[in-house]
C-alpha cells in the first residue's frame, strides 16, 4: 500500500460505502435521512481534509491532484447540502404518498452509493476504474430517476438507461483504445491504464489511436455531460426523478462526466502529434448553448426547463475548455463550480415549489412572489444568478470567457453570445411568468429548510464580489494543468 491507511481520500471513499451498507438496513426513513446527512457531512469533512494533509504521491489506485480536489470538494459539499435538502423534501413526498418508506430505504442507500461512485470516479488513478465508477453512478441514478414508478418516470429512466448504456459502451471502447495506444510506451498491464503514468508519458503515446480514443471517450462521457446531440436523457431524467436527484444530477454527475472528458483532454494536450480537441469541444459546446436556448421557449415543465438550462451551461463550460487558454480554463472551472452550486440551489427551490403548488406545470404556477415570497424570490435570485447577471459569480465567469476568447475567436464568440441572449430572453420569459402575476392554485404556505439554498446563494454571491486567493490559486493551478 503506497498510501497511508488514514489518508482522507481513502476515508472519503470508505464513508459513503459504509453508510450505504448501513442505510440499506435502516427501516425508519427519518433516522435514515439523518444518517444520510451525517454521512454526507462526514465525507465533506474528509474532502476538506485533503487540504489539511500534504499532497501525497499518486498511488497505485488513487490519484490526488488539484483537478480532482476541486471537483471532489465541490461534490462533497453539494452532496451534503443536497442531503440536507432531501431531508426536508421527503416528508412531503411521504405525506403525498408518492414515496413509501421501503422505497426511501432504497433511496437513501442509493444516494450514498451514488456519492461513492462519483468519489471513486474522481479519485481513480486508472481509466478502467474511472469507467466502472461512472457506470455505477449512472446505474444508481437510473434507478433513482425511476423511483416514482409513474409512466413518465419509467419512460425517462428507460430512455436514460438505453442512452447511457450505449454511451458507456463507447466510453469503454475509448478506454480500450487508450490502453492500446499506451501499451507501446508503457508496456502491458495496469501501468498503461494509470493516469499518473499516462500523463508522464503522454508524448510517447500513439497519436492516431489517441485521436480515435478521444473521439469515443468524448461521445461516451459527453452523453453523460449532456452535450447536444447526446443530451436526450437529461431533461427527462431531471424532470421525472425526485428533485434531490435532479439537483445531484445537475450539480454533480454532469461534472464527474465532464471531469473524465477533461482528463482525456489533458492527456491529448500532452501529445503534440494529436489533433487538437479544442474545435470539437467548441462546436459541441456552441451547439448545446444554441439548442438549449431555443428549447426554453416551448417548455411547460419547470424541472425540464432547468434541465435544459443545465445543458446550456454544460455547453458554456465545454466551450470555455474548448477555447483552452488559461483564462478560459479558469473561467470554465469557476463556471462549473458556480453552476453546480446555483443550479442545485435552484432545484431546491423548484422542489419546494412543485410541492407547494402540487404541480410542475409552468402554466399552473403564477405569482409565487406573492403567494410564497421565499420560494418566489428565491427562484428569481437563482434565475438571475444562472443568467449570469451580477452580483452573482457567473457574471464573472461569463465575462472572463467572452473577454478571453474574443480576441482569438471573434465570430464564434458572437454566436456564443447570441445563444446566451436567446437563452436569457427565454428563461426570463418563463420565470417572470411564474414569479409574478396574480397567484393561482394552492397558496397555503409549506414548511421548508431554507438553509441549503441560502448557503449556495451566498457562496455564488460572494464569488461574484470577492474570490478568496486560495480558490483563485487552486483554480489557476488546475487551469494550468488543463492547458
Amino acid at each position, binding site marked *: 500500500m503506497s498510501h497511508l491507511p488514514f489518508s482522507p481520500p481513502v476515508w472519503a471513499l470508505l464513508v459513503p460505502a459504509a453508510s450505504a451498507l448501513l442505510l440499506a438496513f435502516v427501516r425508519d426513513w427519518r433516522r435514515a435521512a439523518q444518517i444520510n446527512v451525517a454521512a454526507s457531512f462526514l465525507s465533506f469533512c474528509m474532502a476538506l481534509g485533503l487540504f489539511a494533509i500534504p499532497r501525497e504521491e499518486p498511488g497505485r489506485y488513487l490519484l490526488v491532484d488539484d483537478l480532482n480536489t476541486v471537483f471532489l470538494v465541490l461534490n462533497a459539499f453539494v452532496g451534503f447540502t443536497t442531503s440536507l435538502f432531501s431531508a426536508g423534501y421527503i416528508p412531503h413526498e411521504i405525506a403525498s404518498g408518492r414515496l413509501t418508506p421501503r422505497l426511501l430505504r432504497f433511496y437513501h442507500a442509493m444516494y450514498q452509493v451514488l456519492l461513492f461512485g462519483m468519489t471513486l470516479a474522481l479519485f481513480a488513478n486508472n481509466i478502467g476504474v474511472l469507467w466502472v465508477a461512472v457506470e455505477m453512478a449512472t446505474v444508481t441514478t437510473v434507478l433513482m430517476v425511476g423511483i416514482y414508478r409513474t409512466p413518465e418516470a419509467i419512460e425517462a429512466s*428507460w*430512455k436514460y438507461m*438505453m*442512452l447511457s448504456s*450505449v*454511451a458507456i459502451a*463507447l466510453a469503454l471502447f475509448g478506454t480500450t483504445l487508450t490502453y492500446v495506444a499506451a501499451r507501446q510506451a508503457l508496456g502491458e498491464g495496469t501501468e498503461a491504464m494509470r493516469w499518473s503514468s499516462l500523463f508522464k508519458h503522454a508524448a510517447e503515446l500513439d497519436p*492516431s489511436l489517441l*485521436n480515435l480514443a478521444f*473521439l*469515443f471517450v468524448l*461521445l461516451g462521457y459527453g*452523453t453523460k455531460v449532456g452535450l447536444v*446531440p*447526446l443530451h*436526450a436523457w437529461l431533461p427527462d431524467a431531471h424532470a421525472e426523478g425526485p428533485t434531490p436527484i435532479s439537483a445531484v444530477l445537475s450539480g454533480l454527475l454532469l461534472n464527474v462526466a465532464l471531469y473524465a472528458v477533461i482528463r482525456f483532454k489533458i492527456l491529448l494536450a500532452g501529445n503534440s502529434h494529436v*489533433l487538437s480537441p479544442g474545435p*470539437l469541444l467548441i462546436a459541441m459546446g456552441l451547439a448545446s448553448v444554441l*439548442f438549449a436556448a*431555443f*428549447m*426554453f*421557449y*416551448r417548455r411547460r415543465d419547470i424541472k*425540464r426547463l432547468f434541465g435544459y438550462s443545465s445543458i446550456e451551461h454544460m455547453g458554456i463550460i465545454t466551450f470555455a475548455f474548448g477555447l483552452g487558454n488559461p483564462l478560459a480554463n479558469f473561467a470554465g472551472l469557476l463556471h462549473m463550480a458556480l453552476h453546480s452550486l446555483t443550479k442545485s440551489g435552484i432545484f431546491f427551490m423548484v422542489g419546494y415549489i412543485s410541492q407547494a403548488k402540487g404541480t410542475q406545470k409552468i402554466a399552473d404556477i403564477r*405569482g409565487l*412572489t*406573492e403567494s410564497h415570497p421565499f420560494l418566489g424570490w428565491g427562484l428569481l435570485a437563482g434565475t*438571475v444568478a444562472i*443568467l449570469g*447577471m*451580477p*452580483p452573482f459569480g457567473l*457574471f*464573472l465567469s461569463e*465575462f*472572463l470567457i*467572452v*473577454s478571453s476568447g*474574443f*480576441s482569438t475567436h471573434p465570430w464564434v*464568440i458572437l454566436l456564443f*453570445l447570441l445563444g*446566451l*441572449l*436567446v437563452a*436569457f*430572453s*427565454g428563461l*426570463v420569459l418563463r420565470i*417572470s*411568468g411564474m*414569479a*409574478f*402575476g396574480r397567484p393561482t392554485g394552492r397558496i397555503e404556505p409549506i414548511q421548508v429548510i431554507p438553509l441549503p439554498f441560502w448557503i449556495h446563494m451566498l457562496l455564488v454571491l460572494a464569488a461574484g*464580489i*470577492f*474570490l478568496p*486567493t486560495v480558490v*483563485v490559486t487552486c483554480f489557476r493551478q488546475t487551469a494550468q494543468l488543463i492547458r
Partner: protein
Amino acid sequence: MTLITALGCSAALLLISIASVLLRRFSGRNALVYAATLAVSLLSLACGIEALLVSPAGSPTLSLPLGVPWLHTHFRLDALSSLFLAIISWGGVSSSLFALGYGRHESSPERILPFFPLFLAGMIWVVLADDAYVFLFGWEIMSLASWALVVSHHREEENIRAGHLYLTMAAIGAFTLLLAFGLLASAGGGYLFSSIRASALSPRLAGAVLLLTTIGAGSKAGLFPLHAWLPLAHPAAPSHVSALMSGVMTKVAIYGFIRIVFDLLGPPSWEGSLPLLLLGGVTAVLGVLYALMQHDLKRLLAYHTVENIGIIFIGLGLALAFSANRIPWAAALSLTAALFHTINHSLFKGLLFLGSGSVLEATGEREMDKLGGLIHRMPGTTVAFLLGSVAISGLPPLNGFASEWLTFQAILVSPNLPQWALKFLIVAVGALLALSAALAAACFVKAFGVSFLGRPRTSAAAEARETDPWSLSALFANAFFCLLAGLFPGQVVNALGPVVQELAGQALPRQSLPFWEPMIPIAQNRSSYDAFLLFVLIAFAGLMIAGLVRGIGFRPIRRSPAWDCGYPDPSPATQYTSPSLAQPIRRVYASSLFGAREAVESSPPGDPRPARISVKMRDPAWEGLYLPIARIVSFLADRLNPMQFLTIRRYLLLVFLLLVFLLLLLSLWI
C-alpha cells in the same frame, strides 16, 4: 476624499436596501428608507458638485481588492463622472423627496423599497467605474434593479411583458458593451480604462467599437429603433422610479457613450459621426411624433425622453464630427450643448414624471382623456407642470431653449467642416431638430391643455386633491432649477467647462460674470443670448401693460357661461380630447410614417348608438425589427421543439450518426 465619500454613499445605499428587507415588519420603513436615501443622495450630490466646481483639476482614483481577482476593481472621479454623479444624485434627491409623500400610497412597498436605493447605487458605480468589469457590473445592477421596479406592480400582465422586453434589451446592451470592451482590451491594454486609453485601435476596430457602443448605450438610452422597451417600461414603474429611469438612467447611458467614444476610443474618424447624426435626428422627430399619438400621460412623457435623447445624440454626433476634423472649439460647443441638454432633460423630465405621479395619485388616472380641469383642483402641481412643459418644449426663458439654442449654434458652424456629406447632413439634421422642437411644443399644448385645463372629464378628475407638501416640494425644487438653468445659461456653461476641456481638449470661452451678462458661445458679433434680462424685460413689459390698462379705466370682471359661438354646451365630453387635438398633425405626419388610418363607423338611422371614430396605426420599429425577430425565434423554437419528443431509437440514431460523422471526419483528416 470626494471619491471615497461617493463610494461610501453607494455603500450606504446598498445598506439601506438590505435594511429595507430586514425591516419588513416595521411600519414606518417607507419614510425611513426614503429619508435615508434622500440624505445619502444629498451627500453624494455634494461630492459631485464639489468635484466638478471646487476642485475640478485632480481626478482621484481608488482600487479595491474585489471583483476579478488579478484585476481588482478601480474607481475614478474625474470631471465627467462628477457631473453625472451630480445628475444621478439630484435625481435621487428629488425622487426620494417626492416618494416621502408618494410612497405612502404604494400598495406593496416591499417590492420597491429594496430596489430603489440599489438602483441608485448601481448607477453611481457605473459613473465611478475605472475598469470595464466595474462598469458592466454597475450597468447590470442598474438594469436589474430597474427591472425589478418595472415589474413591481406585477399583477398587470403588460407590466410583466414590458419587464421581459426591457430585461432582454438590457441584456443586448450589456452584451454589446461587453464586446466593445473586449475589442478595446484586445488592443493590448486590458480592462483598466487608463491602459485602454493608452492603447490605440485600428480604424476598423474603432468603427466596430463605435457601432457596438451605439447599440449598447443607445438601447439603454432609447435611441430609435432600440427605444421600443422604453415607453413600455418607464410608465410601468411607480412614478418616482419612472422619473429616475427617464431622467437619470438614460443619462447614465449617455455617460457610457461619452466615456467610451470620447474618452477611451481615442481619435475618431468623421464617418463615425454620420450614423450618429442621422440616428439622433430621426430619433428626435420620431420620438416626438410617437409622443403626439399617445393618450397615456406617462407614456407620452416616456416618448419625449426618446426625443430628447435624439437631441443629445445630435450634439454628440456634431462633437464627434468636429473633433474628428480637429476643430476643438466647435467640438467644445457641441459637447457643451449636449451635456447642457442632458442636465436640462434630467431636470424637467424628472419634474414632469413626478408631476404625472401626483396626478396619478390624485385621480388614479394616466389617461389624459379622463382628466381635465386640474388647474382648479391642484394649482401647485399645475404651475410646476406648466414650467416643465415650457422647458421641455424648448421655449425661452426656460432651460430647454438654452441648450437647444446652443445646439443650433453648433449646427451653424458646420460650414467649417471639409466633408460635403457632413455639411448637407448637418443642415438636414438641423431641420429635423427644428421640427422636433416645434412638435414638442404642440405635444405639450396637448398634454398640459387636455389634462390640466378645460373641464374635468370624469368625477375622479373633478374630485382630485392637491398632493402632499413633500411631493410638491420635489416638483418645485426641479422647477426652480429649470428656471435657474434657463435664466443663467452662461454659468452652466462655465460649470461644464472642465468636463468639456477634458473631452474636447478645449472649453468654451469663459462666460463673463456678473450673471446678467449675455451668454456668448463663440463671439460677441456672432450670437449671444441673455435670458435673464430678456425675462426681466418681459416681466416689466407685462406689468407695465397691466398698469396701463388700469390707467385707462379698470372695469371688474364679469363671469358668465362660456360663449362658444353661441352653442353653450354643458357636457365636458364635447371638449377636444388628446386624439382630436393631435388629429391635424396626425393627418399631416403620421399617415405616412405610422400608416395612421381613421375609420368612422356610424350606426344606421334609428340606432341610438353613437357613431365612433377609431384610429389604427402601425409602429415602424415593431413592424420592421422586433416582430420579425420574434417570428424567427419562435419559428426556430417550433422547429427544434420536436427534439424533445423523439423516440429512444431516434435519439440513439443521433448518437450513431454523430459517431459515424466524426469517424468519417477522422478518416478523412489523417
